[in-house]
Protein backbone atom coordinates (compact mmCIF):
# COMPACT_ATOMS: atom_id res chain seq x y z
CA UNK A 1 0.00 0.00 0.00
CA UNK A 2 1.37 3.43 -0.91
CA UNK A 3 1.73 5.73 2.10
CA UNK A 4 0.80 9.36 1.41
CA UNK A 5 3.27 12.21 2.03
CA UNK A 6 2.70 14.21 5.17
CA UNK A 7 3.10 17.98 5.04
CA UNK A 8 6.73 18.04 6.17
CA UNK A 9 7.76 15.27 3.78
CA UNK A 10 6.08 17.03 0.89
CA UNK A 11 7.89 20.30 1.64
CA UNK A 12 11.21 18.50 2.03
CA UNK A 13 10.74 16.55 -1.20
CA UNK A 14 9.87 19.76 -3.06
CA UNK A 15 13.10 21.44 -1.88
CA UNK A 16 15.26 20.37 -4.88
CA UNK A 17 12.68 21.94 -7.20
CA UNK A 18 13.10 25.30 -5.45
CA UNK A 19 16.87 25.05 -5.84
CA UNK A 20 16.47 24.29 -9.56
CA UNK A 21 14.36 27.34 -10.34
CA UNK A 22 16.13 29.75 -12.66
CA UNK A 23 17.97 32.53 -10.83
CA UNK A 24 17.60 35.36 -13.34
CA UNK A 25 14.45 37.17 -14.35
CA UNK A 26 12.66 36.54 -17.64
CA UNK A 27 10.49 38.94 -19.65
CA UNK A 28 7.32 37.54 -18.06
CA UNK A 29 8.50 38.27 -14.50
CA UNK A 30 6.43 40.78 -12.53
CA UNK A 31 8.11 44.09 -11.56
CA UNK A 32 9.30 44.65 -7.96
CA UNK A 33 6.37 47.03 -7.43
CA UNK A 34 3.90 44.43 -8.68
CA UNK A 35 5.43 41.82 -6.36
CA UNK A 36 5.15 44.14 -3.37
CA UNK A 37 1.53 44.99 -4.18
CA UNK A 38 0.68 41.30 -4.57
CA UNK A 39 2.27 40.19 -1.31
CA UNK A 40 0.52 43.05 0.50
CA UNK A 41 -2.84 42.03 -0.95
CA UNK A 42 -3.32 45.14 -3.10
CA UNK A 43 -5.12 45.14 -6.46
CA UNK A 44 -7.57 42.73 -8.05
CA UNK A 45 -7.48 39.12 -6.85
CA UNK A 46 -7.14 37.73 -10.39
CA UNK A 47 -4.06 39.91 -10.98
CA UNK A 48 -2.50 38.91 -7.65
CA UNK A 49 -3.08 35.23 -8.44
CA UNK A 50 -1.36 35.61 -11.78
CA UNK A 51 1.59 37.53 -10.30
CA UNK A 52 2.14 35.07 -7.46
CA UNK A 53 1.70 32.05 -9.74
CA UNK A 54 4.45 33.39 -12.02
CA UNK A 55 6.68 34.49 -9.14
CA UNK A 56 6.57 31.09 -7.40
CA UNK A 57 7.96 29.42 -10.53
CA UNK A 58 10.98 31.72 -10.80
CA UNK A 59 13.87 31.55 -8.33
CA UNK A 60 14.78 35.22 -8.83
CA UNK A 61 11.18 36.37 -8.21
CA UNK A 62 10.90 34.06 -5.20
CA UNK A 63 14.01 35.66 -3.72
CA UNK A 64 12.70 39.18 -4.43
CA UNK A 65 9.33 38.30 -2.96
CA UNK A 66 10.95 36.91 0.21
CA UNK A 67 12.92 40.15 0.64
CA UNK A 68 9.92 42.41 0.05
CA UNK A 69 7.68 40.31 2.27
CA UNK A 70 10.19 40.32 5.13
CA UNK A 71 11.23 43.98 5.08
CA UNK A 72 7.68 45.25 4.62
CA UNK A 73 6.70 43.57 7.87
CA UNK A 74 4.66 40.82 6.21
CA UNK A 75 4.38 38.19 8.91
CA UNK A 76 4.67 40.70 11.71
CA UNK A 77 1.50 42.46 10.60
CA UNK A 78 -0.28 39.16 10.00
CA UNK A 79 0.65 38.09 13.52
CA UNK A 80 -0.65 41.39 14.91
CA UNK A 81 -3.95 40.89 13.08
CA UNK A 82 -4.17 37.37 14.46
CA UNK A 83 -3.37 38.68 17.95
CA UNK A 84 -6.07 41.34 17.70
CA UNK A 85 -8.53 38.71 16.47
CA UNK A 86 -7.63 36.48 19.37
CA UNK A 87 -7.91 39.39 21.80
CA UNK A 88 -11.47 40.06 20.69
CA UNK A 89 -12.37 36.38 20.94
CA UNK A 90 -10.89 36.23 24.41
CA UNK A 91 -13.00 39.06 25.76
CA UNK A 92 -16.25 38.13 24.01
CA UNK A 93 -17.04 35.20 26.35
CA UNK A 94 -16.15 37.37 29.35
CA UNK A 95 -18.57 40.06 28.20
CA UNK A 96 -21.23 37.42 27.67
CA UNK A 97 -20.51 36.00 31.11
CA UNK A 98 -20.87 39.44 32.69
CA UNK A 99 -24.30 39.81 31.09
CA UNK A 100 -25.31 36.44 32.45
CA UNK A 101 -24.20 37.54 35.91
CA UNK A 102 -26.43 40.57 35.72
CA UNK A 103 -29.40 38.60 34.46
CA UNK A 104 -29.40 35.48 36.51
CA UNK A 105 -27.32 36.53 39.50
CA UNK A 106 -25.54 33.81 41.40
CA UNK A 107 -26.45 31.09 38.91
CA UNK A 108 -24.13 32.75 36.45
CA UNK A 109 -21.06 32.66 38.70
CA UNK A 110 -20.19 29.06 37.95
CA UNK A 111 -20.51 29.61 34.25
CA UNK A 112 -18.30 32.69 34.44
CA UNK A 113 -15.63 30.75 36.34
CA UNK A 114 -15.64 28.00 33.73
CA UNK A 115 -15.26 30.49 30.91
CA UNK A 116 -12.44 32.28 32.67
CA UNK A 117 -10.61 28.97 33.04
CA UNK A 118 -11.08 28.27 29.33
CA UNK A 119 -9.75 31.70 28.47
CA UNK A 120 -6.68 31.17 30.63
CA UNK A 121 -6.00 27.91 28.81
CA UNK A 122 -6.45 29.60 25.43
CA UNK A 123 -4.09 32.39 26.46
CA UNK A 124 -1.42 29.81 27.28
CA UNK A 125 -1.81 28.39 23.76
CA UNK A 126 -0.78 31.65 22.14
CA UNK A 127 2.77 31.31 23.43
CA UNK A 128 5.40 30.59 20.87
CA UNK A 129 7.65 27.59 21.27
CA UNK A 130 10.59 28.56 23.47
CA UNK A 131 13.87 26.82 22.69
CA UNK A 132 16.33 25.62 25.33
CA UNK A 133 19.22 23.94 23.53
CA UNK A 134 21.43 23.75 21.57
CA UNK A 135 22.41 27.39 21.95
CA UNK A 136 22.24 29.65 18.94
CA UNK A 137 25.19 29.29 16.55
CA UNK A 138 26.61 26.27 18.40
CA UNK A 139 28.72 23.78 16.42
CA UNK A 140 28.42 20.01 16.42
CA UNK A 141 30.53 17.19 15.06
CA UNK A 142 29.52 13.68 14.08
CA UNK A 143 26.74 11.89 15.97
CA UNK A 144 23.27 12.88 17.01
CA UNK A 145 22.37 16.34 18.30
CA UNK A 146 19.93 16.67 21.19
CA UNK A 147 17.32 19.41 20.81
CA UNK A 148 15.30 20.59 23.82
CA UNK A 149 12.47 23.11 24.12
CA UNK A 150 9.80 24.16 26.62
CA UNK A 151 6.35 22.51 26.44
CA UNK A 152 3.48 24.55 25.02
CA UNK A 153 0.04 24.15 26.57
CA UNK A 154 -2.35 22.60 24.05
CA UNK A 155 0.35 21.24 21.72
CA UNK A 156 -0.47 17.84 20.23
CA UNK A 157 2.97 17.24 18.80
CA UNK A 158 6.13 19.06 17.86
CA UNK A 159 8.10 19.00 14.62
CA UNK A 160 11.81 19.70 14.66
CA UNK A 161 13.10 21.08 11.39
CA UNK A 162 16.66 21.68 10.26
CA UNK A 163 16.75 23.87 7.15
CA UNK A 164 19.43 24.91 4.68
CA UNK A 165 20.09 28.60 4.08
CA UNK A 166 17.69 28.58 1.10
CA UNK A 167 14.86 27.32 3.29
CA UNK A 168 14.83 23.74 2.03
CA UNK A 169 14.32 21.10 4.72
CA UNK A 170 17.38 18.95 5.48
CA UNK A 171 15.99 17.04 8.45
CA UNK A 172 12.59 16.80 10.02
CA UNK A 173 11.12 14.68 12.79
CA UNK A 174 7.92 14.78 14.81
CA UNK A 175 7.53 13.94 18.49
CA UNK A 176 5.10 14.43 21.36
CA UNK A 177 8.05 14.97 23.72
CA UNK A 178 10.03 18.18 24.23
CA UNK A 179 13.40 16.55 23.67
CA UNK A 180 14.63 14.90 20.52
CA UNK A 181 17.98 13.31 19.70
CA UNK A 182 18.34 13.86 15.97
CA UNK A 183 20.69 11.66 13.94
CA UNK A 184 22.24 14.31 11.70
CA UNK A 185 25.12 12.19 10.37
CA UNK A 186 23.65 12.14 6.89
CA UNK A 187 22.86 15.83 6.82
CA UNK A 188 25.27 17.91 4.75
CA UNK A 189 27.83 19.81 6.82
CA UNK A 190 27.60 23.57 7.08
CA UNK A 191 25.74 26.39 8.80
CA UNK A 192 22.05 25.54 8.95
CA UNK A 193 18.97 26.81 10.77
CA UNK A 194 16.66 24.93 13.09
CA UNK A 195 13.30 25.56 14.62
CA UNK A 196 10.43 23.73 16.30
CA UNK A 197 6.80 23.92 15.21
CA UNK A 198 4.00 22.95 17.59
CA UNK A 199 0.77 21.55 16.15
CA UNK A 200 -1.98 22.81 18.43
CA UNK A 201 -5.21 21.09 19.40
CA UNK A 202 -7.22 23.84 17.65
CA UNK A 203 -5.53 23.07 14.32
CA UNK A 204 -3.21 26.07 14.43
CA UNK A 205 0.55 26.03 14.52
CA UNK A 206 3.05 27.82 16.79
CA UNK A 207 6.68 28.34 15.84
CA UNK A 208 9.86 28.91 17.71
CA UNK A 209 12.54 31.44 16.87
CA UNK A 210 15.07 30.25 14.29
CA UNK A 211 18.52 29.32 15.57
CA UNK A 212 21.72 28.71 13.67
CA UNK A 213 23.23 25.24 13.92
CA UNK A 214 26.75 24.48 12.71
CA UNK A 215 27.55 20.94 11.58
CA UNK A 216 31.25 20.22 11.26
Amino acid at each position, binding site marked *: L*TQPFDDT*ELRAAYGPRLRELRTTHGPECPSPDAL*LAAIQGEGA*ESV*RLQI*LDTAMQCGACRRDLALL*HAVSGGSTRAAQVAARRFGWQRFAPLAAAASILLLVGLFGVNQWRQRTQENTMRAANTREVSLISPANASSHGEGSVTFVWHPVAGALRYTLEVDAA*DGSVLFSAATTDTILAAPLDNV*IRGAHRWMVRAQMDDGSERRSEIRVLGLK
Partner: protein
Amino acid sequence: MESGQDRISSTIETVVTRFRTMVYSIGVRRGLLDADLDEVVQEVRIRLWRAGKAGKELDELGSSYVYHVATTAALDLLRRRRAYGAEQTEDVEERSELPAEVPSPHEDVEARELAAQIDAAVEKLATERRVAVRMHLSGYDRDDIARALGWSEGKTRNLLYRGLDDVRRRLAAMGISPRRAS
Protein backbone atom coordinates in the same frame (compact mmCIF):
# COMPACT_ATOMS: atom_id res chain seq x y z
CA MET B 1 29.95 62.52 27.44
CA GLU B 2 28.47 61.02 24.27
CA SER B 3 28.61 63.36 21.28
CA GLY B 4 25.59 63.98 19.03
CA GLN B 5 27.08 61.86 16.24
CA ASP B 6 27.92 58.99 18.61
CA ARG B 7 24.39 59.06 19.97
CA ILE B 8 22.92 58.91 16.43
CA SER B 9 25.24 56.00 15.52
CA SER B 10 24.38 54.11 18.66
CA THR B 11 20.62 54.61 18.18
CA ILE B 12 20.84 53.54 14.54
CA GLU B 13 22.80 50.40 15.41
CA THR B 14 20.23 49.41 18.03
CA VAL B 15 17.33 49.97 15.62
CA VAL B 16 19.04 48.24 12.69
CA THR B 17 20.21 45.22 14.70
CA ARG B 18 16.74 44.63 16.11
CA PHE B 19 15.18 45.07 12.69
CA ARG B 20 17.64 42.70 10.98
CA THR B 21 17.11 39.94 13.54
CA MET B 22 13.34 40.12 13.24
CA VAL B 23 13.29 40.33 9.45
CA TYR B 24 15.74 37.47 9.04
CA SER B 25 13.69 35.13 11.24
CA ILE B 26 10.64 35.90 9.08
CA GLY B 27 12.32 35.62 5.70
CA VAL B 28 14.75 32.73 5.94
CA ARG B 29 12.16 30.00 5.40
CA ARG B 30 10.83 31.75 2.31
CA GLY B 31 14.11 32.01 0.46
CA LEU B 32 15.48 35.31 1.79
CA LEU B 33 19.25 35.53 1.35
CA ASP B 34 21.67 37.07 3.85
CA ALA B 35 23.32 39.10 1.10
CA ASP B 36 20.03 40.70 0.00
CA LEU B 37 19.07 41.57 3.55
CA ASP B 38 22.54 42.99 4.27
CA GLU B 39 22.27 45.31 1.27
CA VAL B 40 18.89 46.60 2.41
CA VAL B 41 20.01 46.96 6.02
CA GLN B 42 23.04 48.98 4.90
CA GLU B 43 20.76 51.25 2.90
CA VAL B 44 18.43 51.62 5.90
CA ARG B 45 21.45 52.55 8.03
CA ILE B 46 22.43 55.30 5.54
CA ARG B 47 18.89 56.67 5.28
CA LEU B 48 18.45 56.73 9.05
CA TRP B 49 21.80 58.49 9.39
CA ARG B 50 20.69 61.15 6.92
CA ALA B 51 17.37 61.52 8.76
CA GLY B 52 19.24 61.89 12.06
CA LYS B 53 21.58 64.51 10.61
CA ALA B 54 18.57 66.37 9.25
CA GLY B 55 17.25 66.69 12.78
CA LYS B 56 14.80 63.76 13.04
CA GLU B 57 14.58 62.33 16.56
CA LEU B 58 15.59 58.72 15.89
CA ASP B 59 14.63 57.59 19.40
CA GLU B 60 11.05 58.49 18.65
CA LEU B 61 10.79 56.71 15.29
CA GLY B 62 8.28 53.87 15.35
CA SER B 63 8.87 50.45 13.80
CA SER B 64 6.46 51.35 10.96
CA TYR B 65 8.88 54.11 9.89
CA VAL B 66 11.78 51.64 9.77
CA TYR B 67 9.66 49.15 7.77
CA HIS B 68 8.73 51.96 5.38
CA VAL B 69 12.36 52.97 4.90
CA ALA B 70 13.38 49.32 4.41
CA THR B 71 10.60 48.63 1.90
CA THR B 72 11.57 51.67 -0.16
CA ALA B 73 15.24 50.65 0.02
CA ALA B 74 14.40 47.09 -1.08
CA LEU B 75 12.30 48.33 -4.01
CA ASP B 76 15.14 50.63 -5.11
CA LEU B 77 17.64 47.76 -4.84
CA LEU B 78 15.50 45.38 -6.91
CA ARG B 79 14.77 48.03 -9.55
CA ARG B 80 18.50 48.82 -9.81
CA ARG B 81 19.39 45.16 -10.18
CA ARG B 82 16.93 44.61 -12.97
CA ALA B 83 18.00 47.79 -14.75
CA TYR B 84 21.71 46.94 -14.65
CA GLY B 85 21.55 43.14 -14.69
CA ALA B 86 23.31 42.99 -11.32
CA GLU B 87 21.29 39.91 -10.40
CA GLN B 88 23.36 37.89 -12.84
CA THR B 89 26.49 38.25 -10.72
CA GLU B 90 27.34 35.30 -8.56
CA ASP B 91 26.46 35.67 -4.92
CA VAL B 92 29.48 34.93 -2.74
CA GLU B 93 27.27 34.36 0.29
CA GLU B 94 25.33 31.72 -1.57
CA ARG B 95 28.53 29.97 -2.56
CA SER B 96 29.80 29.91 1.01
CA GLU B 97 26.79 27.78 1.93
CA LEU B 98 27.75 25.03 -0.47
CA PRO B 99 27.87 21.72 1.36
CA ALA B 100 31.17 20.01 2.02
CA GLU B 101 29.46 16.66 1.48
CA VAL B 102 26.95 16.12 -1.29
CA PRO B 103 24.48 13.29 -1.84
CA SER B 104 25.50 10.57 -4.29
CA PRO B 105 24.66 11.27 -7.96
CA HIS B 106 22.01 8.55 -7.81
CA GLU B 107 20.34 10.07 -4.72
CA ASP B 108 20.54 13.51 -6.27
CA VAL B 109 18.83 12.37 -9.48
CA GLU B 110 16.13 10.57 -7.50
CA ALA B 111 15.45 13.63 -5.33
CA ARG B 112 15.23 15.90 -8.35
CA GLU B 113 12.91 13.49 -10.17
CA LEU B 114 10.62 13.33 -7.15
CA ALA B 115 10.57 17.14 -6.86
CA ALA B 116 9.72 17.39 -10.56
CA GLN B 117 6.88 14.88 -10.13
CA ILE B 118 5.48 16.92 -7.23
CA ASP B 119 5.75 20.06 -9.35
CA ALA B 120 3.92 18.33 -12.21
CA ALA B 121 1.12 17.34 -9.81
CA VAL B 122 0.93 20.93 -8.51
CA GLU B 123 0.82 22.27 -12.07
CA LYS B 124 -2.41 20.32 -12.72
CA LEU B 125 -4.29 22.05 -9.88
CA ALA B 126 -6.84 24.81 -10.50
CA THR B 127 -5.24 28.28 -10.26
CA GLU B 128 -6.39 29.19 -6.73
CA ARG B 129 -5.29 25.87 -5.24
CA ARG B 130 -2.06 25.92 -7.26
CA VAL B 131 -1.00 29.33 -5.99
CA ALA B 132 -1.87 28.46 -2.39
CA VAL B 133 0.07 25.18 -2.59
CA ARG B 134 3.09 26.75 -4.30
CA MET B 135 3.26 29.50 -1.67
CA HIS B 136 2.94 26.91 1.07
CA LEU B 137 5.71 24.73 -0.41
CA SER B 138 7.87 27.87 -0.71
CA GLY B 139 7.60 28.51 3.03
CA TYR B 140 4.71 30.97 3.33
CA ASP B 141 2.22 30.24 6.08
CA ARG B 142 -1.56 30.43 5.97
CA ASP B 143 -1.73 34.03 7.27
CA ASP B 144 0.67 35.19 4.53
CA ILE B 145 -1.35 33.40 1.84
CA ALA B 146 -4.65 34.74 3.17
CA ARG B 147 -3.36 38.31 3.28
CA ALA B 148 -1.75 38.24 -0.15
CA LEU B 149 -4.82 36.78 -1.81
CA GLY B 150 -7.42 38.61 0.27
CA TRP B 151 -9.01 35.35 1.37
CA SER B 152 -10.62 34.54 4.69
CA GLU B 153 -8.79 32.14 6.99
CA GLY B 154 -11.42 29.46 6.22
CA LYS B 155 -11.16 29.84 2.46
CA THR B 156 -7.36 29.73 2.61
CA ARG B 157 -7.36 26.60 4.77
CA ASN B 158 -9.91 24.93 2.51
CA LEU B 159 -8.10 25.68 -0.76
CA LEU B 160 -4.68 24.81 0.65
CA TYR B 161 -5.68 21.50 2.22
CA ARG B 162 -7.71 20.42 -0.78
CA GLY B 163 -4.84 21.36 -3.04
CA LEU B 164 -2.35 19.39 -0.94
CA ASP B 165 -4.75 16.44 -0.86
CA ASP B 166 -5.02 16.51 -4.65
CA VAL B 167 -1.23 16.48 -4.93
CA ARG B 168 -0.93 13.57 -2.48
CA ARG B 169 -3.61 11.60 -4.34
CA ARG B 170 -1.92 12.18 -7.69
CA LEU B 171 1.42 11.06 -6.30
CA ALA B 172 -0.16 7.99 -4.67
CA ALA B 173 -1.89 7.11 -7.97
CA MET B 174 1.54 7.16 -9.63
CA GLY B 175 2.84 4.84 -6.90
CA ILE B 176 5.09 7.55 -5.46
CA SER B 177 5.54 7.46 -1.70
CA PRO B 178 7.96 9.08 0.75
CA ARG B 179 11.14 7.30 1.74
CA ARG B 180 10.91 6.83 5.48
CA ALA B 181 13.61 5.53 7.77
CA SER B 182 12.55 2.19 9.29
